């Protein structure tokens, strides 16, 4: 820091510190005294208000107490509490109590809103000036509980009944003996209390007083915001300290966040805080005035001190400044400078001494200047040499110096490195000739140097380890000013890499040439302007030219009339300017291009590929143009496309689902019908390429995969009838025809789900039928079998009755018994028949080879009597052996023959049994010349118990044919009848070869 400001700063410091201290003390004193007086004021306000508040409560409570002690009130209250409320006398008392005692108190502006008398036991409001309160209970409220003992003031609460804040005051009513009758209570008007608390001591001041309850909630309203009472809680330093039951004063932020001075007092009796606060801004207004005045005085004093300081410092620093200038001038070389300060003080003496010193200095300096000049020159030369040496040392070219004999006197680091040495001591003094592969060449160089003064060329150098490398050399003979040689100097560049690169280039050029020449693809190369520079034989062949000369250097891609005509310029630009390859087909009309001539073909469809060749910076330097004549291929493709289109049309209009797979069963193609098997929305593309195992998840579990693979292997077609889990509808049945197509597999899939389902349903129905038939047979068998026993009893006892009492009763009785016996017999026959019928199914034997001839013989024997009786003639063909249940077949013959004999006309029966070989079965016939059967009965006769004739006319139960039918059907055959009524009937039945089905 300079002396001037330092002096000024010192002045300010000396003057302002005491000034500041004094001001601060004055301000602080003022503030303290104001604070103290405010504290006193606020505290006394609190005491005053608390006193007023308590007095108000006391007054109100006193009114209540006085009322409770009125003898009439005591008497009435006792009567009401003890009596029945509906009692007219009690009613009258209630009215007097209310009108004469309670209501007048309210009218006196006693501070009560209502008055009530509560039953001492139950807390029931017996009577109230507010009738809506009557009948309600207050048994648990503190004012009732406490009011039973003594006068009680309940703190402010929210009354649901009044929907407002309320204060309850209560007092007991005792009778003369001092026992409790009731509690007198009233709601006190809070408005009055609030007014006492809120009343401002100084109008317009920010000072306010409020009450808060022990739960931090406002009890009275805030002066600043409405609606705070019991709805806003407050947590300031003042309230917190007060609720800890302290009485104090303090400076803190109030609930609005504004700094206040507050005094608070805990009202233990009311369990509330009374707080009076005033804004600090207002309280400290006068202190602030003092503060402002002090600051003004301070600033004024400071300004004056600064002014004084400047004047004093100037008188001291002026001469010193001149001395400083003098010293700077002499230091800068001006030895003639003199300060000339005319003063007799210490600074004046310093000035004289200074001027004398300057004079002496001037004399000494002049002789030294020449010596200095020489030193500067030398230094310059030295530096230049140092630069040169550094340049040689850091050169990447090897540099060496030799004496005139060729022995090395200096090498730079590059030399040591190039020849693979560690340090220069290994080479210094060695002959330069030892560094070459062939020493003779070295000798030649040294000789050339000696004679001609310089040599430039290449040699093969020999490294320390014996390996060789190519070196380019520039060597010179160094001579002095008179031209006498001093030494030899040479610079070397290692050109091994360059040589290798040159060779590689030559090789790659050769390779490219070979590729180009031998490539069967027509290729030519353009320069960056699109002019042809090279061409291969294939290209010449395509263009029908025999020499390069027609094209090279002449043909320009950019001026090709065909490319221009067909608007391919854009593609060219892409290649040449953006460096992107392109490929397009072009229908090239050679007749439009003068440079080429293709005999016989004016048009060719060319597939043209042009790609750029770029240099290392990405600039296009060449383009390679390849074309392929695709005229024929295109035609073939079109033909193929047309045939494929036909095939597609055929495939897709077929209703059968076709699909084709390769040898690994990957899907190659499918038609619409096959696609429709998949869920709607499935695209062909989703399926193609997927393996059949992937498409049909169940494939691998079954042996189908192997079956299909076998088709591909053997070429034998395969027909399958399979249930395949289907992605759309669950399991599906498909009929699959698989056959080999090329190396893969073709498949025709037919959805036979419906057919399969129908079959399934049929099968199930059949099973049901069989089961129910079996059950029915069982039932019939069991029923008929079990019925026989009781029937036998009936029949036996009937016969016993007939035996014993015939003739001993009257005629009617005999007849009735005869009917009963007959009935029982017939029933026995019916049951037997039924049993036989049911046995056909349940008791049938397995089929065996049976000679029907022999069976018939037996029947004829059985029926011998009947035949004789009816004078019948029975003839028969030679009957075959069949697979049958012998017993049942006998039964059929017996039934049919029996019928044929039984139902004869007037002429004796003539019966013929025949057998005819049919396809897979034998057809038997039993022909008679009997009464014949009307067409409408030809079906009915086979139904069980259907008789066409009465029992008198022809005996029998009519079950024979039904049994026969069942037997034949059991054998898998059919039975039917052909007949001409009056002329006879023929019954036919068939027995299949296989037997039971």
């Amino acid at each position, binding site marked *: 820091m300079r002396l001037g400001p330092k002096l000024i700063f010192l002045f300010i410091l000396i003057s302002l510190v005491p000034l500041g201290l004094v001001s601060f003390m004055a301000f602080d004193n003022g503030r303290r005294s104001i604070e103290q007086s405010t504290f006193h004021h606020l505290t006394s306000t609190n005491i005053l208000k608390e006193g007023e508040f308590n007095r108000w409560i006391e007054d109100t409570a006193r009114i209540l107490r006085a009322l409770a002690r009125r003898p009439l009130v005591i008497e009435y209250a006792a009567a009401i509490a003890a009596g029945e409320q509906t009692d007219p006398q009690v009613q009258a008392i209630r009215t007097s109590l209310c009108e004469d005692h309670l209501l007048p108190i309210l009218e006196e502006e006693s501070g009560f809103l209502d008055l009530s008398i509560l039953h001492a036991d*139950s*807390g029931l409001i017996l009577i109230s000036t507010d009738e*809506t309160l009557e*009948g*309600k*209970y207050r*048994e*648990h409220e*503190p004012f009732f509980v406490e009011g039973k003992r003594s006068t009680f003031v309940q*703190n*402010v*609460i*929210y009354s*649901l*009944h009044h*929907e407002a*804040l309320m204060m309850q005051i209560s007092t007991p009513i005792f009778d003369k003996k001092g026992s409790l009758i009731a509690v007198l209570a009233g709601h006190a008007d809070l408005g009055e209390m609030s007014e006492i608390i809120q009343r401002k001591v100084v109008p317009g001041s920010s000072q306010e007083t409020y009450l808060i*309850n022990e*739960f931090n*909630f406002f009890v009275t309203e805030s002066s600043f915001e409405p609606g705070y009472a*019991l*709805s*806003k*809680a407050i947590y300031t330093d003042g309230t917190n300290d007060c609720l800890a039951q302290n009485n104090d004063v303090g400076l803190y932020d109030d609930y609005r966040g504004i700094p206040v001075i507050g005094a608070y007092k805990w009202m233990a009796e009311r369990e509330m805080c009374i707080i009076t606060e005033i804004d600090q801004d207002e309280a400290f207004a006068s202190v602030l005035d003092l503060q402002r005045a002090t600051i003004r005085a301070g600033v004024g004093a400071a300004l004056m001190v600064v002014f004084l300081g400047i004047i004093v410092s100037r008188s001291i620093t002026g001469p010193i400044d001149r001395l400083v200038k003098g010293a700077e001038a002499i230091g800068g070389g001006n030895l003639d400078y003199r300060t000339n300060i005319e003063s007799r003080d210490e600074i004046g003496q310093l000035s004289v001494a200074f001027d004398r010193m300057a004079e002496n200095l001037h004399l000494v300096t002049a002789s030294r200047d020449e010596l200095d000049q020489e030193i500067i020159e030398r230094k310059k030369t030295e530096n230049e040499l140092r630069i040169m040496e550094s340049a040689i040392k850091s050169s990447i070219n090897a540099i060496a110096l030799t004496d005139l004999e060729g022995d090395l006197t200096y090498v730079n680091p590059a030399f040591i490195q190039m020849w693979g040495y560690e340090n220069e001591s290994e080479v210094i003094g060695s002959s330069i000739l030892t560094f070459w592969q062939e020493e003779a060449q070295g000798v030649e160089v040294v000789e050339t140097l000696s004679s001609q003064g310089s040599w430039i060329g290449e040699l093969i150098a020999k490294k320390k380890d014996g390996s060789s490398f190519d070196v380019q050399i520039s060597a010179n003979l160094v001579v002095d000013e008179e031209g006498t040689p001093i030494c030899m100097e040479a610079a070397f560049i290692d050109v091994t890499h360059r040589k290798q690169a040159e060779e590689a280039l030559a090789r790659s050029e050769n390779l490219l040439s070979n590729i180009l020449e031998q490539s069967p693809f027509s290729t030519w190369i353009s320069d960056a302007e699109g002019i042809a520079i090279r061409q291969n034989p294939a290209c010449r062949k395509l263009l029908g030219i025999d020499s390069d000369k027609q094209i090279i250097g002449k043909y320009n891609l950019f001026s090709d009339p065909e490319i221009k005509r067909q608007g391919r310029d854009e593609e060219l630009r892409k290649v040449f300017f953006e460096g992107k390859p392109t490929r397009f087909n072009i229908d090239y009309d050679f007749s439009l291009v003068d440079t080429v001539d293709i005999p016989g073909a004016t048009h060719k469809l060319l597939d043209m590929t042009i790609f750029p060749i770029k240099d290392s910076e990405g600039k296009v330097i060449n383009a390679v143009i390849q074309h392929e004549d695709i005229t024929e291929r295109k035609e073939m493709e079109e033909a193929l496309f047309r045939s494929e289109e036909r095939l597609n049309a055929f495939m897709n209009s077929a209703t059968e689902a076709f699909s084709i797979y390769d040898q690994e069963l990957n899907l190659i193609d499918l038609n619409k019908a096959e696609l429709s098997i998949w869920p709607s929305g499935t695209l062909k593309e989703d399926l193609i390429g997927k393996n059949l195992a992937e498409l049909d998840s169940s494939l691998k579990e079954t042996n189908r995969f192997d079956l299909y693979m076998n088709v591909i292997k053997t070429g034998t077609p395969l027909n399958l009838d399979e249930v395949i889990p289907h992605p759309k509808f669950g399991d599906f049945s498909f009929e699959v025809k698989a056959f080999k197509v090329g190396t893969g597999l073709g498949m025709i899939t037919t959805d036979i789900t419906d057919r399969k389902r129908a079959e399934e349903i049929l099968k199930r129905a059949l099973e049901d039928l069989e089961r129910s038939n079996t059950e029915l047979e069982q039932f019939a068998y069991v029923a008929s079998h079990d019925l026989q026993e009781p029937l036998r009893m009936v029949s036996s006892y009937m016969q016993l009755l007939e035996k014993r009492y015939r003739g001993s009763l009257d005629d009617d009785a005999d007849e009735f018994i005869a009917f009963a016996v007959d009935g029982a017999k017939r029933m026995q026959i019916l049951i037997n028949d039924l049993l036989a019928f049911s046995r056909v199914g349940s008791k049938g034997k397995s089929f065996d080879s049976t000679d029907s001839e022999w069976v018939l013989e037996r029947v004829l024997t059985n029926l011998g009597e009947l035949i004789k009786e009816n004078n019948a003639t029975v003839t028969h063909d030679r009957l075959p052996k069949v697979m049958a249940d012998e017993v049942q077949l006998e039964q059929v013959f017996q039934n049919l023959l029996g019928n044929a004999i039984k139902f004869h006309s007037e002429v004796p029966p003539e019966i013929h049994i025949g057998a005819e070989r049919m396809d897979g079965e034998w057809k038997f016939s039993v022909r008679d010349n009997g009464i014949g059967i009307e067409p409408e009965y030809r079906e009915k006769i086979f139904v069980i118990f259907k008789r066409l004739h009465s029992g008198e006319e022809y005996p029998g139960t009519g079950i024979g044919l039904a049994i026969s039918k069942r037997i034949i059907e059991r054998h898998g055959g059919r039975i039917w009848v052909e007949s001409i009524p009056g002329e006879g009937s023929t019954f036919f039945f068939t027995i299949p070869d296989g037997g039971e089905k």
Partner: protein
Amino acid sequence: MKWIAKICTVMLMTSIILVACGPPATETPVDEVTLQLKWFHQSQFAGFYAAAQNGYYAEENLNVTILEGGSSVDFKEIVLSGEAQFGVAGGDELIVARSEGKPIQAVGTIYRRTPRVFVAKADSGINGPTDFVGQNIHVTSSGLPTLRAVMARVGISPDQYNTVSGPQDVELFASDEVPIWSVYLTGSIRVLEEAGFELNIIYPDDYGVHFYADTIFATDDFINENPDLVLRFLRASLRGWRWAVENPVEAGSLASEYKAELDPLIQITQMEASIPLVHTGEDQIGWMRDDVWEGMHQTLLEQGVIKKSVELDEVYSMEFLSTIYGEE
């Protein structure tokens, strides 16, 4: 001046070292807690929303998920099963639960006055329970004990009035067929108010029937094992309720955060109606009184809702409220 720079550097370094070497900040993991409400999301539960939204739970290192209840939600079971740690239920329900051997207890109450009131038309002449004689009263099964208790208090037996349940049909109220309804002061009363009726409100509290409608409860085991967590949860919840009482408009609109379809205006009205029930000026928010619990217990016994008395010490605990507020 250099020595000043040196001192500054030394001080700076020291402070950096002190900061770096200070005790590592202890990060206790946040406690995940679920609160199961007794009814659908609405302002009835505003204090809980406030505690969550204002970060009071977070300050207590809690992350509270609030699940709504409903007619088909067995909220007591959900707390019993441990799916939720806290629940909101009526005090009477807790007494009944205890009598059935279910180990749950209240740690604080939200509604300190019964929000379930009876209403009649203002000009109907029905001003108190004595006027209920011979009338049809609409009341749900959960409201029945209150009605019976009030009526018993004024000496009216159940055969002297009829109760009607089923949906609330304003027509029946309008035609005086069912002139008295048991409604929630903070909820279903709106149906009638919106229909334009001037109403007489009959408070069960006026007839000695004091029910805590919404208490905060948890299982015995949970309380015994996690007393600190219960304390923190209760403290933050009550803080939320205090905030809700002080800021009814903001608190009322919080319910919509949990259920977007709620009408904020209705929710604010509901919140404002709740204030006098939550905060009466007598005790701290959440405080419970022994005599009220005894009264509830007595009423349930008299009404035969519970067959024999239960230990009230097991039904509610003042432990946490006392810790929070100090002994009253």
